[in-house]
Each structure stands twice: as C-alpha cells, then as structure tokens.
C-alpha cells in the first residue's frame, strides 16, 4: 500500500518536472519563432507557397476525423471482436466471401481514409485478404453518404448514382477475385503489432494510438503530394483535352489520382467539370475513392510498398474499364 502511494507520488513528481521543462522549452521556441518567423516568412511566403500550405493543411484537417473513425473501428475490431465472428459471418469460400465483403462496404460511412486501417485489422483478424481488399475498395465508394452526395451533385440524373454504384462495386469484386486467384501473400506485409494475446481495453488504447499515428503520418505525406500537384498543375490545362472521348476518360482518371478529393466531395468536383462527357466524369468518381496519392501513401504504410504499387496500378485499370462499361450501358 505504502509502496503504491510512493510510486504514485514519484510518478506525479516526474510528470510535473516534464510538464514544466517541456512548457518552458515550448514557450521559448514559440517566442523565437514568432519573432524571427515573420521576417523570414515575408520573403518566402509568396502566394503559391501560401496556397500550398492552405491546401496541405486543409487535406490533413479534413482527413483527421475520418482517419480517427477508421482507426477507432479498426482498433475495436482488433481488441473486442474474436476471430470466430468473422469466420461465421463470411462464407468460407473466398470466391463467395469477396462479393459479400464488397456489399458490406456500404455500412462504413466515411471517406477513403477510414477504410485502410479497417481493412488491415480485418486481415489481422483472419479475414481472407481478398475479401478484406474488396471491402477496402467498396467502402468509400458505395456508402449511403457518398451516394446521397452524388445524387445532390447531379440533380435529376439518377443514372449517374446507379452508374457509380455498379461500376464501383464491380471494380471492388473483380479486384477481390483477382487477388484470390493471382495474389501472393509475400507481397502483403502486415505490421505485426502487439502480441496476439492482447485483448480488451488496454489493447484498444495501444492499437488506436499506434494506428492513428502511423496512418496519420501517411495522410500528411499524401496531403503534401496532393497539394503539390494542386499548385503545380493548373486545372485549366484540362480544357485542352475535352475534345476526345477516350482521352478525356483517361485524363479524368489520372486527375482523380492526383487531386485526392475526398470521396464525399468528388461528385461535386465531377459535376463542375462540365466540359467532359458523362463517362469521363463517372470514371473520375469511380477511380478517386479507390486510387489516389493519399491512399497510395496510406496503403504503402499499412500493407507495404510492393503491395501498394501492384494493387493500385491494377485497381486503376480495372476501375477505368468498369466505368467505361457502366457508362456505355447506363449513361
């Protein structure tokens, strides 16, 4: 008893010392930076640099709530849901589990930042990678929030919403099957974290902290890449390509990768690209939630670089093909 109290006191004392030292250091740094900063900044802070910082922080700020939601769900799966639950819910046969997981993507209401950590923890919980990957691709594209946003962005054109749903789901399922048939486990490097025995509240906290910091770092990396493209490539360059139907599909599919617009907003951006044919705009909305710079960074961090390179490039091709087919059929 006495020892516990002593330990507690020592801990509190140490905390106080760290807080005071850290606080003094922070204040000192803040003072120096806020005095010297403006002098240096005035020379370097040209309009493009300022716009870069704004876009960069905007993407990071926008991503944080969704990333936190995703990591809370993934940490909860890791800490509270035993493996047998997924074994019972999903068909044993991967060929059947893939479409089930793809449709299940509709239940995670968020944009793409949330789905990467969730897919990672599903795999750690024994879900077949093919099924988890189908979920990863479909969740940000076909959830109700995104579909409602699409119908608002394209008023009076329900075929656009249907086209998005069909093409996205098809891409997710095809990618799941492709992985089940051709994927190799050695491409996939899941970070092996806390001991498998870890379960319960403490494991939840540790998993949440680790996943958020890890994914957050890659979100910042992706935001920096997206902001750079946003500032370097003016959108008016696009108008050159509006003439050819084929070129415009490919161009908007590349633009979706580069712009990293969050999947809840990309329909509004697609609606504003009014010079392009509907199929090209559909491709923009199908590719965007599945492949973009921020996602590539997040996937490389969660599943390893060799996975991210292979998976995202094939996903891009499949997404373009399925949106062309869906566009030809529906639009």
């Amino acid at each position, binding site marked *: 008893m006495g020892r516990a109290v002593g330990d507690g006191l020592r801990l509190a004392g140490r905390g106080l010392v760290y807080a005071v030292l850290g606080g003094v250091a922070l204040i000192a740094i803040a003072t120096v930076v806020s005095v010297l900063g403006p002098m240096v900044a005035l020379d370097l802070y040209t309009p493009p640099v300022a716009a870069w910082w704004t876009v960069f922080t905007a993407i990071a700020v926008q991503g944080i709530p969704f990333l936190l939601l995703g990591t809370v769900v993934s940490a909860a799966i890791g800490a509270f849901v035993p493996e047998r639950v997924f074994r019972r819910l999903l068909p044993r046969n991967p060929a059947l589990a893939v479409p089930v997981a793809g449709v299940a993507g509709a239940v995670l209401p968020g944009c793409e930042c949330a789905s990467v950590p969730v897919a990672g923890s599903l795999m750690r919980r024994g879900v077949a990678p093919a099924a988890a990957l189908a979920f990863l691709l479909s969740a940000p594209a076909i959830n109700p929030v995104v579909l409602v946003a699409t119908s608002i962005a394209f008023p009076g054109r329900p075929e656009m919403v249907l086209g998005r749903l069909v093409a996205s789901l098809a891409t997710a399922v095809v990618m799941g099957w492709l992985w089940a048939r051709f994927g190799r486990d050695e491409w996939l490097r899941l970070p092996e974290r806390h001991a498998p025995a870890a379960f319960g509240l403490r494991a939840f906290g540790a998993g949440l902290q680790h996943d958020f910091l890890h994914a957050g770092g890659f979100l910042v*990396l992706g935001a920096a890449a997206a902001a750079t493209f946003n500032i370097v490539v003016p959108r008016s360059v696009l108008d050159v390509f509006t003439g050819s139907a084929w070129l415009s599909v490919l161009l908007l599919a590349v633009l979706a990768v580069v712009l990293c617009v969050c999947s809840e907003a990309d329909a509004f951006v697609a609606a504003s690209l009014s010079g392009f044919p509907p199929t090209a705009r559909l491709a923009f909305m199908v590719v965007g939630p599945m492949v973009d710079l921020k996602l590539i960074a997040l996937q490389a961090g969660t599943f390893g670089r060799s996975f991210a390179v292979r998976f995202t490039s094939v996903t891009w091709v499949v997404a373009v093909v399925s949106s062309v087919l869906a566009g030809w059929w529906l639009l």
Partner: protein
Amino acid sequence: MRRYGPAALLLLTGGAVLRITLFGDLYLRYVQPALRPYLIVSGAALMLLGLTTGLTTAAHHDGHGHGHGHGHGVGGPRVAWLLTLPALALLLFPPPALGSYSAGRDAAQRAAQGVGAFPALPAGNPVELTLGEFSSRAMYDSGRSLKGRTVRMTGFVTHGDDGTWYLTRLQVSCCAADAGTGKVEIRGTAADGPWPADTWLTVTGTWHPKGRLGTDAAWPPVLDATSAKQVKQPADPYEKR
C-alpha cells in the same frame, strides 16, 4: 524522452485541431462549417488518448521494463513525426484562406444545369445573394427573377486582361483542396476603385442581362454597380458549392 513521442504527437495534433475549431473560426479557411462538431470531438479524443498514452508510458517506465515486440522501436512509428508539420503550422502560423492567386489559376467554372424557372427571390431591397446564387439565376432563370431587383454580394477583387474586374468568391464543397471559382463582372463608374486584387468588397447593384440564357455568351454574368464598400474578410471566406 523519445518514449514520450507518441503522447506528445497526439497532444500536439489534438491541440492544433481544438485551436482552430474551439477557439475561433480558423477552421473555416480549410473545411466546411458542418465538419466542426466532428473536428471538436476528434481533437478532444486525441488529447485524451495522448494523456492516457503518456500516463501508461510513465507507469511502464517506472514499473517493470516492458517488452516491446513493436517493430517500430520505443518512439512509435517514425513516419508519425510528419504530423508535426500541419499541427505546428496550425498552432503558430495558420495558413491564410485561398484568394486571388487560386482564383486566377483556375478557369472559373459554372455548374451546368438546365434553363428553368427559379423560386421567387426573398423580399427586400437590396436582396443579399451569394455569388453562386446570382450567377445561376443570371444564367439559367427563364423567369428572370433578377430583373429590376437591387442585389448585394460580398467577395474579393480579381482583375481580367483588359481592364475588367470581377467580384470573386471561391466555392468549396468539402475542403479547400476542391475549391472552384465563381465570379461576377462588375461595371459602372460608381464602384471604380481601382481596387487592388484580394480586397474584400460588398457591392450593390443591378443585374445587366447579357447573352442568351444557358449559353457561354451569358458567362460570366455582369452587375451594374451603384456602390462598393470595403469590408473585412468574412469568417467563412468560401461559398458552399
């Protein structure tokens, strides 16, 4: 000290998010008003997580040396340190709202829609409109509801090639990364500044019909200004798309 890295990063990130949402309107430079509650909850949750992480680390440090089969070492994942960039930027020098530079790089867009009758404008003279509302009524309203009305709009100044100038506002649907440009050409001697670019103005005037409805000739819409007054940048610098 490195072992407290994760806790410090969480506190820093949470603190930055709370600073721009709870203590002021700075978040409006980056995201939509609707995101505020989620940002506040996230910021608070991150602070809480940072505190518990710090305390657990301290307890582990004091008690039994902990075995870390972590793969990242004691300090947590190294890539996480990148989070300090946006966090410190928000805490020390919050980046400004996008302005005429972004508007100038981006060909102004208009949401394509069909020509049709719009609902009646609210009563009152002058009637307060966003640039987006004015533009879509000027371009697509077969009922010509703007005719004979005095309108008032707020935006910043941008300049065209041949001495024309525009009242401009960036339109955002999710975050500043998807900003598009809306603009209205301002004519009339009463409003002549000449205002430098990025000056925020509230302009009052009447619609100057131009071109056939729904065609490129009707774009950008024109306002015959009767007065222009310099104002402070509004808390929300963008318009909802």
